[in-house]
């Protein structure tokens, strides 16, 4: 009991973007505690948006002024490398526009604890109650996403996974309308999420048992020294994989996605479908490339099967969906499959950086288009809230050609039609995959894209070539935030579809040095 323990070095500068977001979340809780009710939203909105924008600026500053760090930060726990900086940037952009959408009134419940339809609820609605806790909760989730995608250590990754997920479980249950569905989504997401994180944790325990460390680099070197023929390791890797596959919604772990996406408040769905997916892919890449890169001959065949199943399930099941949000959820599943193709296409360093760059670009394009699509969904309303059923969207092109046109454009981007960002996203992932020997997967990918294109086109046909119902939904006049989200997303989808080169270059640059170990 003598001799001081040396204090760890923590590179606060590099971690600043993340710390800023977490700090803003804590401040948000303080605002909830101290500010009077009528002022809360007015304080939350600038704090939230400024912290996200500030964090983004810090990332730019880091990349421009100091360059990309070559050592993991905080004693090897967090890796702020090129891909991490890019993914952070993407998450912050997506989070920022999702927050604009969340900021829209009339999406969240007045009093979550009140039983739906009870007098208490009516009182809460009458008093104009609102859960401004949404803002700090979302900030915690966003901070978790940042940490999740840059964790260089399985323990940090697990904690980040929970920090990201727990607020989302709660947010899912806060829809203002159709509260039964919302609460059901919340409880399903929670139970299944906790279940899958149990698997992740057990996998982590087994891998720790094998390697004696949970540091990703340490696991990688243990693979070489301990010898890769250990059942303990394989089961551990499989269970880790289950936890990660669950988060990205890969089949057969995709079942939660349609239910949760449908039930959750649409702005939260937008945040989950974009930010969570991006963060989870960051974690998948780190686990499978950094820690298990030397084991790729073993996990690759399994990942092949998962990717194919995911693409096929996503594309096929989307066809018969009758709810717009469910359809987008299945589309998200199919897109997760396309992204997995990039994860599989590993090889030498050059090949890896090609695949990585493709994935990074795809994540950006898909995320932005997704937020835009869900923003449009929030605007098409029935008496009882959003008009979810597809039949209600019939003839929307005649009532509101601009909105329907933009939505059609987003769908075409999902389908990967040229001149949209989706085309280059697919191109950027599929092209390196072909050279990485995943031709078979790319063929399946292209076929599922074709099947997927079919159901996107079906919605477009429905909107433009069907007679509108007499009592069809109204298109709500968008708030400034929602209009901005739709405009930003549409503009980004066009610009990245016509003039993608600068962003492709940026992704190349971010991916060039690969992950640090």
């Amino acid at each position, binding site marked *: 009991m003598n001799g001081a323990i040396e204090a760890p070095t923590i590179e606060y500068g590099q971690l600043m973007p993340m710390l800023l977001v977490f700090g803003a979340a804590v401040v948000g809780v303080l605002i909830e505690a101290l500010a009077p009710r009528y002022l809360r939203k007015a304080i939350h909105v600038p704090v939230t948006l400024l912290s996200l924008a500030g964090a983004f600026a810090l990332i730019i500053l880091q990349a421009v002024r100091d360059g990309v760090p070559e050592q993991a930060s905080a004693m090897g726990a967090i890796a702020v490398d090129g891909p991490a900086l890019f993914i952070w940037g993407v998450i912050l952009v997506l989070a920022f526009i999702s927050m604009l959408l969340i900021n829209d009134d009339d999406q969240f419940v007045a009093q979550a604890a009140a*039983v739906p339809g009870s007098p208490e609820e009516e009182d809460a609605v009458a008093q104009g109650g609102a859960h401004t806790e949404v803002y700090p909760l979302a900030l915690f989730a966003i901070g978790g996403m940042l940490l999740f995608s840059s964790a260089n250590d399985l323990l940090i990754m697990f904690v980040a996974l929970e920090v990201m997920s727990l607020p989302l479980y709660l947010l899912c249950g806060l829809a203002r309308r159709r509260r039964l569905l919302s609460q059901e989504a919340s*409880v399903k997401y929670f139970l299944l999420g*906790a*279940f899958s994180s149990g698997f992740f944790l057990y996998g982590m*325990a087994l891998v720790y048992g094998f390697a004696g460390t949970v540091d990703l680099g340490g696991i990688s070197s243990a693979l070489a020294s301990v010898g890769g023929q250990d059942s303990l390791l394989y089961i551990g890797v499989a269970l880790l994989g289950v936890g990660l596959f669950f988060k990205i919604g890969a089949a057969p772990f995709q079942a939660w996605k349609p239910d949760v996406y449908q039930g959750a408040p649409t702005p939260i769905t937008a945040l989950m479908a974009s930010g969570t997916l991006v963060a989870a892919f960051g974690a998948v890449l780190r686990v499978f490339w950094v820690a298990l890169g030397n084991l790729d001959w073993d996990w690759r065949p399994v990942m092949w099967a998962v990717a194919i199943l995911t693409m096929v399930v996503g594309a096929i099941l989307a066809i018969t969906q009758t709810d717009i949000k469910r359809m987008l959820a299945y589309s998200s599943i199919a897109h997760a499959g396309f992204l997995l193709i990039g994860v599989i296409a590993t090889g030498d360093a050059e090949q890896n950086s090609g695949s990585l760059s493709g994935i990074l670009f795809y994540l950006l394009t898909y995320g932005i288009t997704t937020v835009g699509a869900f923003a449009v969904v929030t605007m098409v309303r029935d008496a009882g809230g959003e008009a979810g059923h597809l039949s209600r969207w019939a003839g929307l092109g005649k009532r509101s050609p601009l909105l329907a046109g933009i939505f059609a454009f987003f769908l075409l981007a999902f389908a990967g039609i040229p001149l949209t960002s989706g085309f280059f996203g697919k191109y950027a992932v599929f092209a390196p995959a072909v050279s990485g020997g995943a031709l078979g997967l790319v063929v399946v990918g292209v076929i599922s894209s074709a099947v997927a294109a079919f159901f996107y086109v079906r919605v477009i046909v429905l909107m433009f070539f069907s007679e509108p119902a007499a009592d069809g939904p109204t298109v709500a006049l968008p708030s400034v935030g929602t209009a901005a989200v739709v405009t930003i997303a549409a503009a980004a989808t066009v610009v990245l579809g016509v003039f993608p080169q600068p962003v492709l270059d940026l992704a190349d640059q971010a991916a060039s040095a690969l992950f640090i170990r």
Partner: protein
Amino acid sequence: MTTHYLVLSALLFAIGAVGVLVRRNAIVVFMCVELMLNACNLAFVTFARQHGNLDGQLIAFFVMVVAAAEVVVGLAIIVTIFRTRRSASVDDANLLKY
């Protein structure tokens, strides 16, 4: 003789996983999840002893904290849906499907 602890941990984990599948009451399901987490803790501590380093014990601390947070969030959600539906059965929450 750490193997026994690992066996116990595997048993606990399996009981937890099966419990999630067969029990209907959301709170019991949730307790089964917690059981799985505790099984993990046992495994971590055992492996820490095997490897002679403290990482595993440290992780166990974090897992306990995370589990506590999960309890709070989970119970809040379950109680809310119970108050709405007057039922804590996970099978009754079955509006979102197909």
